């Protein structure tokens, strides 16, 4: 897989080619030069004497280790990390402006948020993150490594890990045998061989500390079943990692798992199956027949309702009850909105096969509302259509829905284009993707309620405005900073992209010419609580890290709604509340949350990078841990620089921070995390808290300390 370039012509949506940036190849070139150069010199100048003096197996051993290191290095560099192809337009059914920014799924009893990726046009699966350097969503994203100039993800993490292990071994070998040579040639140090050996020894000694530190860090990650992304964003600081299977199984998964397939660059076989009418139809049940007979085609039939409800019974119990938020008159249908309450996202479906993106539409504001209704109605009507009309056609309102959709999408496109004009928002080739600078545009967009999903919300003020009075930024329309998801160590301070923690993403983005966005903005206030995560603002989430989980908003479902396209009349009343929700409070509000969270890792470095980020201080939820983690994150960001002393410091701090967080799992002992038996306790506790809390302040419930992870998952820790 080509390094750093998205693959065009891959199946589905081709990703745009990115501009060639030679600076990205400097670290990987340097790493290659050092590795190959130093090893070659060692093999040529030192090994002959070793073979002669001791045994010829020593050079052979060194060659084998070197080749193994090189092979893993090449695999880590060139292998597709697990890039998701862009979703095709027809999959993107969310021209529905109600489409939420986040979807919550339950992973082994723990609520995990999936964020909408505006670049790739789908909800990012758990553990997936969007790398801004590569401009791709990567499966099980670990980080973007500048030394191999590639993302490390599901497919190549094993090679990266083996590369670190083998490189550490190789460095130790080279250093050790070079030292042996020097000790036997103390009186011949003026010779060329000795000089070269000394130089090789210095280089290997210099690189040993940071490499060993990083290796140790990844050994701990593998043992605990975490990715670098999850570790540095503190997703599981509360202690419950739904993706771990125990130490041994985690290690087995990394080292012994089968090679995952790539998604890009596959040959797409055209369907050879001919679909031709007449079509078979399943026999209708008696209940369906009866219901349809009395169905007037407007209301959903009772039987279909029952069917739909029975489908939902398969789901786990829904999150805490939310006030009725649906538009008046809309029946309770198993639409996407409803199913968001259940454990898994609904089965999305297109109403009508959607045409390609239309030109920016200005008339969506009027149409969206009506399309909202029509879409809902249509969905309920569909089951009854075949009966009443005898035709197997969906009686939708294509004009409205498609217009609304097109309008929304067009609006989004318009927004995108506008944003591009605003300030070079797009840094990605020819694509006019909105970016931070879109915030200005979004202000305008809020009033016109264009397709917010495509617009990027840089500033929180916008998100809340759009929210219909619900949680500010839980709307795909506000999706934005997600593109800045690269988790190279240097960017960890500035930007971290994670499924549940996209709100922090923009906070952490690398320094840009544009003014940074305040935290709470867009992601503005992505709701925090893991069990009801989309509803809580960033501020709440931040506060919840202190103690209790962030309170739930009264209408959590609203959080899923995309307010924007709402008629202009709606906007004004919402804005003040929204603003209060989303706008970053001046000073030490808990809001800067995601940033705050990551700041606990990034610490001062982050603040240095983003001086105006979210205004005001970033509260550290866990001062003790953050005290250690700040420098650690600083060090992580300096992976690029990689000085030995810094990494030694980093490694020590990492150990200390792990100990202080009570999750330290020494590689040898490998207790491997917490038991997950507290999950059920947590869920009941969380639900209780969620139902009770209505304010951003969080107070510890007696006996149980609520900690909300960055990703929105909330854990209770007995104190």
């Amino acid at each position, binding site marked *: 897989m080509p390094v750093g370039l998205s693959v065009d012509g891959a199946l589905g949506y081709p990703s745009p080619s990115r501009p060639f940036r030679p600076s990205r190849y400097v670290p990987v070139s340097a790493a290659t030069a050092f590795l190959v150069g130093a090893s070659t010199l060692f093999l040529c100048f030192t090994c002959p004497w070793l073979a002669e003096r001791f045994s010829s197996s020593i050079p052979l051993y060194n060659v084998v280790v070197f080749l193994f290191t090189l092979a893993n290095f090449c695999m880590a560099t060139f292998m597709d990390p697990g890039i998701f192809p862009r979703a095709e337009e027809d*999959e993107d059914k969310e021209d529905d402006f109600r489409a939420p920014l986040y979807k919550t799924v339950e992973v082994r009893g723990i609520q995990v948020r999936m964020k909408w990726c505006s670049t790739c046009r789908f909800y990012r699966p758990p553990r997936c993150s969007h790398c801004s350097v590569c401009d791709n969503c990567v499966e099980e994203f670990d980080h973007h490594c500048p030394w191999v100039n590639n993302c490390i993800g599901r497919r190549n993490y094993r090679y990266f890990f083996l590369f670190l292990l083998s490189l550490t071994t190789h460095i130790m070998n080279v250093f050790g045998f070079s030292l042996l040579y020097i000790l036997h040639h103390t009186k011949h140090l003026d010779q060329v061989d000795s000089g070269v050996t000394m130089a090789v020894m210095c280089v290997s000694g210099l690189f040993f500390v940071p490499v060993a530190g990083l290796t140790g860090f990844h050994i701990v990650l593998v043992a605990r079943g975490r990715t670098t992304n999850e570790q540095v964003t503190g997703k599981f600081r509360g202690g419950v990692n739904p993706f771990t299977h125990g130490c041994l199984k985690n290690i087995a998964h990394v080292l012994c798992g089968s090679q995952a397939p790539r998604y890009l660059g596959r040959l797409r076989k055209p369907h050879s*199956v*001919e679909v*031709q009418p007449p079509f078979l139809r399943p026999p209708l049940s008696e209940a369906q027949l009866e219901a349809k007979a009395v169905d007037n085609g407007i209301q959903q039939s009772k039987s279909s309702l029952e069917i739909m409800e029975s489908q939902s019974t398969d789901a786990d119990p829904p999150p805490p009850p939310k006030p009725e938020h649906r538009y008046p008159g809309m029946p309770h249908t198993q639409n996407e909105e409803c199913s968001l309450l259940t454990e898994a996202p609904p089965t999305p479906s297109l109403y009508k096969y959607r045409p390609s993106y239309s030109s920016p539409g200005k008339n969506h504001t009027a149409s969206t509302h009506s399309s909202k209704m029509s879409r809902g109605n249509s969905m309920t009507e569909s089951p009854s259509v075949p009966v009443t009309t005898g035709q197997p056609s969906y009686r939708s309102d294509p004009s409205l829905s498609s217009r609304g959709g097109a309008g929304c999408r067009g609006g989004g496109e318009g927004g995108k284009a506008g944003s591009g004009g605003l300030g070079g928002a797009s840094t990605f080739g020819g694509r006019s993707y909105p970016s931070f600078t879109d915030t200005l545009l979004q202000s305008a967009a809020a009033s016109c309620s264009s397709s917010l999903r495509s617009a990027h919300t840089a500033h929180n003020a916008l998100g809340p405005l759009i929210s219909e009075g619900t949680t500010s930024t839980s709307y795909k329309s506000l999706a934005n900073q997600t593109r800045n998801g690269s988790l190279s160590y240097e960017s960890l301070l500035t930007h971290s992209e994670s499924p549940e923690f996209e709100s922090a993403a923009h906070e952490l983005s690398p320094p840009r010419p544009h003014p940074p966005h305040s935290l709470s903005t867009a992601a503005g206030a992505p709701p925090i609580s893991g069990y009801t995560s989309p509803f809580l603002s960033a501020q709440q989430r931040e506060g919840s890290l202190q103690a209790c989980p962030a309170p739930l908003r009264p209408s959590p479902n609203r959080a899923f709604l995309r307010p924007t396209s709402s008629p202009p009349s709606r906007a004004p009343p919402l804005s003040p509340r929204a603003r209060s929700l989303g706008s970053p409070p001046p000073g030490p509000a808990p809001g800067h949350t995601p940033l705050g969270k990551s700041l606990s890792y990034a610490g001062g470095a982050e603040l240095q990078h983003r001086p105006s980020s979210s205004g005001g201080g970033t509260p550290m939820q866990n001062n003790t841990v953050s005290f250690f983690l700040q420098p650690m994150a600083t060090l992580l960001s300096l992976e690029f620089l990689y000085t030995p002393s810094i990494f030694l410091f980093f490694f020590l701090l990492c150990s200390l921070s792990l100990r202080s967080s009570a999750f330290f799992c020494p590689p040898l002992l490998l207790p491997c995390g917490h038991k997950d038996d507290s999950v059920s306790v947590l869920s009941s506790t969380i639900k209780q808290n969620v139902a009770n809390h209505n304010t951003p302040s969080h107070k510890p419930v007696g006996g149980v300390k609520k900690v909300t992870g960055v990703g929105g998952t909330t854990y209770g820790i007995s104190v």
Partner: protein
Amino acid sequence: MATEFHNLQELRHSASLATKVFIQRDYSDGTICKFQTKFPAELDSRIERSLFEETVKTLNCCYAEAEKIGGQSYLEGCLACATAYIVFLCMETRYEKILKKISMYIQEQNEKIYAPRGLLLTDPIERGMRVIEISIFEDSGSTSSSSTGSPSSGTAQ
């Protein structure tokens, strides 16, 4: 005879793509590849629930088999390490073999079950294993009576 020919054309029906349904992933067991077996409402009048569920369950089993960590995957990894991963150029991995099996299964299901019902499954690998796409076709009625009217079947690409 020309008249007959035109009449036949007029009588010919064609299928047109009406909508698409996307079966999402089921993450309740973690990040393993598993799709929801929840029956979408849009297919309610198009296919029997049992057939649909059987298809999805079979696919889930295949993916679980592909991702199983066992002796074969371990040996494959060891062999790859021993050959400096050159073996990947020559040999197909276990996962790829199972993906081919899945692809054939989906084609068979399309031919036997889904196409006769005006549906078409798309291999999830084409969508990055995020969704199973089911295209729903509708009978667009007879073609026009123009002499050049060519019947178009709903062969999806």
